[in-house]
């Protein structure tokens, strides 16, 4: 059974793209950020235009109407699926197949936000994100869109520095991959944790004084480093 929430999309080039939908928590935070920005802008508009009397109030009402309904649409279409809040949380809206969101889809998902908001504070929306496979709220289901994590820039592809050492036994491909990944993640793990993880390989590191370093040497050999 799959535990993570990623899913794959097959492109016309025969490539499987891996995508990771964003759950309710980052989305709520992004929404709160956007809410504050919108409130700020509305306040500013009212303060500035109030000096112009009824004319200003009329204009202010038009602006606030646009902010209420079309603020997300504008940003999603203009800035690769990201409102300022989503940009801060590093998530973006896209069609289910990861292509950029279409104008019609953006309008649909944002007008239907009203229903997601029912019966109070995004009750239906939350229920829908939890039930649906890809964290889609009702508006997303109708518009065929999904909110995805924008992957962080990949960790630096540091060259493995350990001197290569041939493996003493035949390793399967997933095992090789695990060793290379272990070596590349050196900087993100504490030395103790590295040793602890290395010991899980049991037979491979039997009688080694520094299991982690030994595994790194194996990894260097696996990626084809010359001694």
């Amino acid at each position, binding site marked *: 059974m799959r535990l993570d929430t990623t899913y794959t999309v097959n492109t016309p080039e025969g490539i499987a793209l891996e995508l990771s939908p964003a759950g309710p928590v980052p989305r709520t935070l992004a929404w709160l950020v956007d809410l504050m920005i919108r409130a700020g802008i509305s306040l500013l508009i009212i303060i500035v235009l109030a000096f112009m009397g009824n004319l200003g109030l009329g204009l202010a009402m038009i602006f606030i109407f646009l902010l209420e309904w079309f603020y997300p649409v504008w940003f999603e279409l203009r800035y690769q699926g990201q409102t300022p809040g989503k940009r801060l949380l590093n998530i973006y809206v896209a069609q289910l197949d990861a292509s950029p969101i279409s104008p019609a889809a953006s309008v649909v998902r944002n*007008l239907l936000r009203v229903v997601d908001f029912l019966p109070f504070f995004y009750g239906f929306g939350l229920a829908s994100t939890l039930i649906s496979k890809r964290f889609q709220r009702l508006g997303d289901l109708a518009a065929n869109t999904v909110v995805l994590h924008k992957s962080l820039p990949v960790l630096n592809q540091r060259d493995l520095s350990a001197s290569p050492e041939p493996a003493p036994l035949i390793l399967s491909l997933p095992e090789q991959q695990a060793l290379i990944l272990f070596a590349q993640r050196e900087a993100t793990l504490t030395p103790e944790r590295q040793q602890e993880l290395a010991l899980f390989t049991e037979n491979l590191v039997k009688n080694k004084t520094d299991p982690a370093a030994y595994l790194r040497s194996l990894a260097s050999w*696996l*990626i084809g480093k010359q001694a």
Partner: protein
Amino acid sequence: MKQSIFVQMNESLWHQLEAWLDFQDLSRKERSKRQAEQPSLDFPETYRHICHHLALAQSRMYSPLLIERLNQLVVRGHNRLYSSRLHFWHRLVEFFLRELPRLVRQERKVVYLAASLFFGSFFSMMLAIQIQPELVYSVIDGEQVAAMELMYDPKNTSRFGREREADSDVLMFGFYIRNNTGIGFQTFAGGLIFGLGTLFFLLYNGLVIGAVAGHLTEIGYIQTFWSFVAGHSAFELTAIVLSGAAGLKLAEALVMPGRKSRRLALLDNSRIAVQIVYAAATLFLMAAFIEAFWSSQAIIPPVVKYVVGLSLWALVLFYFVRVGREQRV
């Protein structure tokens, strides 16, 4: 092939594509600010190469970090290659001169249903009040009825006796846009709760508007009321009906999905419904404009207002019935 050799051989191509994609992401302003030159690159071909690299990296089980890096490049390239080009103005003209009236005719079932719900409740309320005048208090409370009477009182010259200042016209314009269009959008969205929201807004608005019209007619404020609403009625009432039709289209997908799954039916129907919503929003905007800048002008004689109002109804009907049909040979 070992991973390090693979990286060595192809890395320059990845950097080229990265640079090209970075350039495409810049806005026009930033480009001129940084004086960036478009890197020369055969994008589709490079993209296919990199798809190939990703496939190789996956099947050879290279480091997940390398695969992830290529995956990201491919996602960015995919988005760039398959983003749709917009011919905005052409599409706009095409939409309003052909597609929209055709779509409304094609979806006439939901349009008729929405219209009969709305106008049905409107006319029955209006007629019922001619027979039972106190019925008005069943949908509108007494204070509001009194305010309304004051507003349309023929003896009251504060509003209709003289010109309203131009700036309060703008105020009302903003108010009508925000209020009416908002109600329209909610009527549409209410379709997603199995049509209950749409049903409520159509009937409720029909009853209230019917009560207002019925009551003011019954107490004899005929000229002030009807000449005021004549101008924008065509656009506004049609817009309400179309919002309702769009909502019912959503509801149809959930209540009677036919042989599709509910999910698929909802996707298909929402694509249609959103176009009807565009039409409703446009009509709301035009109605707000007329209501603020034309209907409120007391200087225009009522006869002119009635004639204009009727012509606008004729125009709306003509648009939805005739426009966009191919010429018969």
